[in-house]
């Protein structure tokens, strides 16, 4: 740690450091871009992965916290804080030229806080309508419904974009632009389209049948969860995580609970840890089965969909018996789990373990080997390893590009150090590789369950927690491996019983960011299969 400090202060003497959950570097705005370039390109530092971009409002200043990771060195996190005091016209240099993932992430920060990113090529709002008044996550946001009534008419000028470009004298010029040129033939998908897996909207410029560019229009299910969290107490915000990526409900909630527990210094009983891990893996199986079914259905193979859902119902039955609900289980709580496992739990899980290998063969027989499926998936939607890292595409989609990025291995948590499993990697970099990673991960999840099902220790299911939970002042970042990739929770507390800022770093947000580069050069019909193989969940993107 100290050598990193020395190295950074050598590159940029104006920085200051803060210890905490992870090392935080305070950097003045004017030095930020040069420091970022060094952090990325320096051989020793080599921070090649931008994990999270968190927009912030500290009342006297606005800013962004960037979480960086070096995938080559180790997976330790480094936080960089950039703040500006100008509230009227806050401007920060964009790092989207270094880490492409910032292209969308910085647009989110602009949408929420009005921070303009210099040299960012496309400074449009991301979630909210382009005629929205104000920046909702600012602490002084005026929530008067008269300012932003429910507008019944469509958005106008949706092709218009703007960028703030700095010339060689350091002067910043506002340059208007267009998303598509006059000559582009644009095909619209969504927001209500059966194959976008929710309410996502894509606009694709096509040349004949070949896609030239895909513009992602998000926000059709943006529910403002991060703002809502700021007004609620910690136990009250837990239920939002179940409703973001509803196919990773347990993992997301696990992550938020772990983040709060880390801040409180709370030890979770071993029984709860094992139950949580098992629930996470069951959730992963159910999610991948749904992904299998939906990929098949998007290609017209309806039978495979029924097969996938048949086993998914078994998992849902296990959830229902223990948690009381098929979806939105609300099972993890701060310090453990809300209820003990059902008496049938072990029996049911064993039954699932018993039948899954047989059923996996059925899936492969009915869909994987199919010649149409092969042709539609193989060699389509190429995402190279470099791009996967640059766009921070984690989870099965990243591992389909042969990038080892499993959070369960890199930052072992819960009961994962206790079990043996393989991190599934595929070298294909195409839709087929991503699909195969999911199928093989089901087998690995079954393996993890097999090792844990007889090892659930006795004991309490919940630690003693104070009635009113107050986190000490500070900031924490916690990651878990959700069904679709690395899910992160950022909490900043000022010592009150409700958080000062909560940010959810969702994996699907980055997945949708590569739609453009994955689709370019492919046929228009492949947009659907590429989306299906990336397998994003829209409420997780929009939050």
């Amino acid at each position, binding site marked *: 740690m100290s050598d990193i400090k020395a190295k950074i202060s050598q590159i940029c003497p104006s920085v200051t450091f803060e210890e905490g959950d992870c090392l935080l570097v305070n950097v003045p705005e004017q030095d930020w871009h040069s420091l970022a370039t060094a952090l990325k390109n320096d051989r020793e530092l080599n921070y090649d992965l931008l994990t999270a971009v968190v927009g912030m409002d500290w009342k006297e200043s606005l800013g962004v916290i960037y979480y960086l990771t070096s995938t080559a060195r180790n997976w330790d996190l480094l936080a960089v804080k950039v703040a500006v005091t100008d509230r009227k016209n806050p401007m920060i240099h964009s790092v989207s030229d270094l880490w492409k993932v910032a292209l969308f992430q910085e647009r989110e920060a602009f949408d929420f806080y009005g921070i303009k990113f210099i040299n960012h090529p496309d400074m449009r709002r991301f979630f909210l309508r382009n005629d929205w008044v104000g920046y909702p996550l600012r602490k002084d946001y005026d929530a008067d419904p008269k300012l932003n009534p429910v*507008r019944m008419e469509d*958005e106008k000028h949706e092709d218009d974009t703007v960028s703030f470009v700095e010339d060689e004298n350091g002067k910043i010029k506002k340059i208007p632009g267009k998303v598509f040129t006059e000559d582009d033939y644009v095909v619209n998908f969504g927001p209500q389209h*059966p194959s976008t897996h*929710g309410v996502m909207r894509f606009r694709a410029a096509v040349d004949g049948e070949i896609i030239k560019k895909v513009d992602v229009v998000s926000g059709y299910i943006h529910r*403002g969860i991060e*703002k809502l969290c700021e007004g609620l107490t910690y136990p009250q915000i837990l239920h939002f995580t179940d409703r973001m990526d509803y196919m990773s409900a347990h993992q997301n909630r696990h992550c938020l609970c772990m983040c709060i527990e880390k801040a409180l210094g709370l030890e979770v009983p071993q029984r709860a840890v094992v139950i949580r891990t098992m629930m996470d893996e069951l959730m992963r199986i159910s999610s991948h089965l*749904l992904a299998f079914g939906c990929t098949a259905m998007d290609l017209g193979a309806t039978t495979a969909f029924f097969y996938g859902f048949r086993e998914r119902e078994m998992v849902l039955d296990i959830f229902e018996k223990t948690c009381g609900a098929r*979806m939105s289980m609300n099972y993890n709580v701060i310090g453990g789990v809300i209820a003990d496992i059902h008496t049938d739990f072990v029996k049911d899980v064993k039954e699932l373990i018993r039948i899954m290998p047989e059923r996996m063969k059925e899936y492969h027989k009915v869909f994987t080997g199919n010649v149409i499926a092969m042709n539609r998936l193989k060699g389509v939607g190429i995402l190279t390893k470099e791009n996967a890292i640059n766009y921070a595409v984690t989870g099965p989609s990243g591992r389909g590009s042969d990038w080892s990025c499993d959070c369960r291995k890199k930052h072992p948590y819960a009961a994962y150090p206790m079990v043996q499993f393989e991190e599934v990697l595929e070298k294909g970099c195409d839709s087929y590789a991503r699909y195969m990673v999911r199928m093989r991960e089901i087998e690995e999840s079954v393996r993890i369950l097999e090792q844990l099902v007889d090892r659930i220790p006795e004991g309490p299911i919940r630690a003693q927690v104070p009635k009113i939970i107050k986190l000490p002042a500070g900031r924490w970042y916690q990651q878990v491996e959700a069904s679709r990739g690395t899910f992160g929770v950022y909490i900043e507390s000022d010592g009150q019983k409700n958080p000062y800022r909560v940010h959810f770093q969702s994996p699907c947000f980055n997945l949708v960011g590569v739609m453009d580069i994955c689709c370019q050069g492919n046929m228009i019909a492949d947009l659907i299969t590429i989306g299906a193989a990336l397998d994003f969940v*829209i*409420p997780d993107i929009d939050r």
Partner: protein
Amino acid sequence: MEVKIKSMKHEDFKDNEYIDKLVEELNASGTNVMVGKLDQLINWGLSNSLWPLTFGTSCCAIEFMSLGAARYDMARFGFEVARNSPRQADYIMVQGTIVHRMVPALLRLYDQLAEPKYVIACGGCAVSGGPFKNSYCVLPGVDKVLPVDVYIPGCPPRPEAFFYGLMQLQRKIKVQKFFGGVNRKERIEEFFAKHPEERGQLG
């Protein structure tokens, strides 16, 4: 007279008051035998082949997919042909939160549905905004912009709850007067003309 549907007995429904009241109204106003019989025929056909327009924005849509799969199999009741084009659907099933950006799209889809058309609000979010009611950009219930026929509460509702709600819609259709009806759908503007206070709330 009681309203009969094939799949569930009258006494098994928990809320029969409203449907009895509708029947009473229908009987009181009286009708021509021919027209009445024709109405019954149309309603019989309509109620047994209800094609939903899938409009799943979030979690409820996944439960709706379970409905389509083998275990719950909504084909048993005539709901199986989920359409993705509003022009081929009978009713819009709003599953999930409706946010500000979505409202124009939702209204357009509703306008594109052919008459007679119905709206079902599925899940807490569509009913009232659910857990996101206080958010800056969430519509607190689709009934703020559309006339809703059936509400299905739950977060998300169980498949059984979906069926219960869909059967309620079947019953409502059974008592509708197709020719110059009284309980037919209202257009948005007519709805607002009757409820000006709703428009006020929406600015």
